């Protein structure tokens, strides 16, 4: 073989190009280019300008003049935890501190790992303004909640939570890299610890949770439990055993073909029939959680399957060549690469689970949306048409949470270089 062309096998040197010079337009030139570049654009600008101005005026007027926010102010604790015993509220705060510490630590450790990797790849670091933009929606949410709560204690406690998160993030950035691998495990332990802080040692069982607390529990519990199930289902669907493949495929497609509400119905009305006679019927919260897990697992499985398909065959063959067993190949070679590629999609699934938890109100659970409906029936507020205020409040909470997470997932996408490599 004499004609091996080396030049095709080595990457061509990237020519050092300078980007076009940054353009600086004054306001007039900018407007001419972006708003009035043609007759049609001029008309569109005027029409949309009037429309936006009208919407902005109406919203401003509603939020600051017309709306009667008293119902939210007086029910803020109800909206957040509903019938949670008030004497045990300290447990929720303690759980928040535990969560802040573990998540802060995990983000710090994982962030350091990925930022080292990013530096090696030559991805520029983000500035401080990016960080503010990222947590912006969350910050707005917290500020709005505090404004409604009008409580100094709550403000101080929230400041404490934020400080704890930042502190542990710094600590997380300082730990040796070998330990940093355990960051995700530590976050899991933190979530479990937060749950136990509220329930264990004479605490409040989850059946008495409500409001945003229940929403968060269903969303976080749902994703944490359904994730391993989903991974197993995905591996099963890609298995070389036809029997396993058929069973997993049937389950995934069956669940994905029906609306979540039918599965919630099944668990609410019919789950009891499938248990052995005489056994205690699980509580409403447990039944809803089971339905959410069964539902989400199928979607997680499809996402993970996408990741599995994206792992090059060569990786598998190389693993076999060095003599790894099938189990080790999957655990050490295939899964890590597959999961890394689908993190943004998994965040997307988590967002939709977070939004879907609002459906459990149809089967009688009092999560955020149900509380928002219930408080309009209080004797002080009944028949005053305060639906709009409470619904907008609930919508805002969901919006802030989802928007924040979708921003984070976009950042992860660029950070991990999904689709680039």
């Amino acid at each position, binding site marked *: 073989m004499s004609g091996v062309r080396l030049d095709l096998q080595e990457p061509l040197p990237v020519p050092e190009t300078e980007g076009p010079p940054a353009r600086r337009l004054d306001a007039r030139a900018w407007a001419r280019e972006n708003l009035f570049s043609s007759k049609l*654009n001029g008309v569109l600008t005027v029409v949309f300008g009037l429309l936006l101005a009208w919407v902005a005026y109406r919203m401003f007027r509603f939020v600051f003049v017309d709306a009667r926010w008293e119902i939210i102010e007086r029910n803020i604790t109800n909206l957040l935890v509903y019938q949670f015993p008030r004497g045990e509220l300290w447990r929720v705060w303690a759980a928040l501190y535990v969560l802040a510490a573990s998540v802060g630590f995990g983000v710090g450790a994982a962030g350091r790992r990925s930022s080292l990797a990013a530096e090696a790849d030559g991805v520029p670091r983000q500035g401080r303004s990016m960080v503010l933009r990222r947590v912006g929606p969350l910050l707005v949410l917290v500020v709005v909640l505090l404004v409604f709560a009008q409580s100094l204690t709550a403000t101080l406690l929230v400041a404490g939570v934020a400080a704890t998160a930042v502190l542990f993030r710094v600590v997380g950035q300082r730990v040796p890299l070998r330990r940093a691998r355990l960051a995700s495990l530590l976050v899991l332990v933190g979530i479990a610890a937060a749950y136990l802080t509220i329930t264990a040692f004479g605490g409040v069982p989850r059946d008495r949770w409500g409001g945003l607390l229940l929403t968060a529990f269903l969303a976080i519990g749902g994703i944490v439990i359904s994730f391993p199930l989903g991974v197993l289902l995905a591996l099963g669907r890609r298995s070389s055993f*036809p029997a396993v493949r058929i069973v997993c495929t049937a389950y995934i497609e069956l669940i994905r*073909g029906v609306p979540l509400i039918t599965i919630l119905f099944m668990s609410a009305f*019919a789950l009891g029939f499938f248990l052995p006679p005489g056994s205690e019927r699980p509580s409403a919260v447990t039944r809803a959680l089971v339905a959410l897990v069964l539902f989400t697992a199928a979607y997680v499985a499809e996402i993970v399957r996408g990741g599995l398909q994206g792992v090059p065959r060569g990786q598998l063959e190389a693993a076999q060549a060095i003599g790894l067993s099938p189990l080790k190949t999957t655990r050490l070679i295939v899964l890590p690469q597959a999961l890394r590629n689908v993190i943004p999609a998994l965040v997307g699934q988590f967002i939709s689970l977070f939004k879907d938890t609002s459906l459990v109100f149809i089967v009688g659970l009092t999560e955020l949306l149900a509380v928002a409906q219930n408080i309009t029936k209080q004797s002080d507020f009944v028949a005053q048409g305060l*639906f709009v205020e409470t*619904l907008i409040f609930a919508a805002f909470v969901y919006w802030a949470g989802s928007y924040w997470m*979708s921003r984070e997932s976009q950042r992860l996408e660029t950070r991990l270089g999904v689709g680039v490599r």
Partner: protein
Amino acid sequence: MSAATPTVQARPPLWRNVRVLRWAFQAGFLLVVALVLLYLWGNLTGNLERLGVRTDFRYLRQPAGFAIPDSDFRSSQNVFQALLVGAKNTATVAFLGILLATLLGVIVGVARLSTNWLVRRTAALYVESLRNVPVLIIIIFWWAGILLRLPPLDDGSDVFGVFSISNRGLVLPSLDRTGGLGVFLVAFALTAAAAAAIAVWRTRRFDATGEPHRRVLWAGSVLLAGLVVAFLVSGRPLGLSLPEGSQFATAGGLRFSPEFAALLIALVLYTASHIAEIVRGSILAVSTGQSEAASALGLSGFQRLRYVVLPQAFRISVPPMGNQYLNLTKNSSLGIAIGYYEMTRVTGISISQGGPAPQAILVLMLFYLGFSLFIALVTNLINRRLEIKAR
């Protein structure tokens, strides 16, 4: 030389034979799955028997015991017929929703890529604010927050005497049958055929000579003229039915209940925000060289979009669009929260009227599964037609 050379054993022992092991493993797996299912099935039948609930599907033939407003369904009819009405309502919302959401979604998606900064920003605002809110809240908001708060039915709710808007719903003028339709329908079919023929002729003419085809104008005017003539000749078989308001109800016209309107509007707005993102992504995925080449040929902005970019973007967007259509159909089950009589609500009521829950929910799931499969089938057919045939 008859040395006992060790012969290569033809087969490994059974417990090390990969083929046998694979079969054994799969058989064991199936056995476990079957045992779990059997256990659940045993519990189910045992429990149902103990509670005296029937285990068959005969409940479908029993009288429903509830009426469905805005339909001909009476409470003496059986559950199966109630489910049919529910299925029809679900299909109506899904069909109209898919149509309108696609329209709105494409417009917003294109607007997100407009050269006009303000238009771009408005579209982004729309998408980001609706995409991140649960669809259930949007549905309830439109129902309780907007449509039910419209002024009650009175003289003021008539708009030009043509349609009426109130908290009782929206009433549009409709066509009512007043005479024999046979002649009219035949004349209509003939006109439509003539219009189609003219459109084909104009297209051929355009291909041959290059003179402007104006086929829409030609065919449209033929169709309209034919319709008017047919209508008059066949003795005016259709009459316009206008809403006639009284204080409590409207008579005549096509009535949309607030529940239907709220569900439809919310599903359209929510799904359109997702479709807009798909459209935007698909347009961005069409290589810029295509639209630069179109500009170089001298196509205008609209022509560039209509003839070069959108057809290619459409091909990319078919699979994710199909997913959104499935989601819209499944989300229509949330009509139960506002009391729209679609499939899920009818099932829910039949359970609360004493129907057996496991069977009823099974029927419900099978219905959605069938509906989903139908939509998936249509999407796949379109996709197969459009995808680039490559070897």
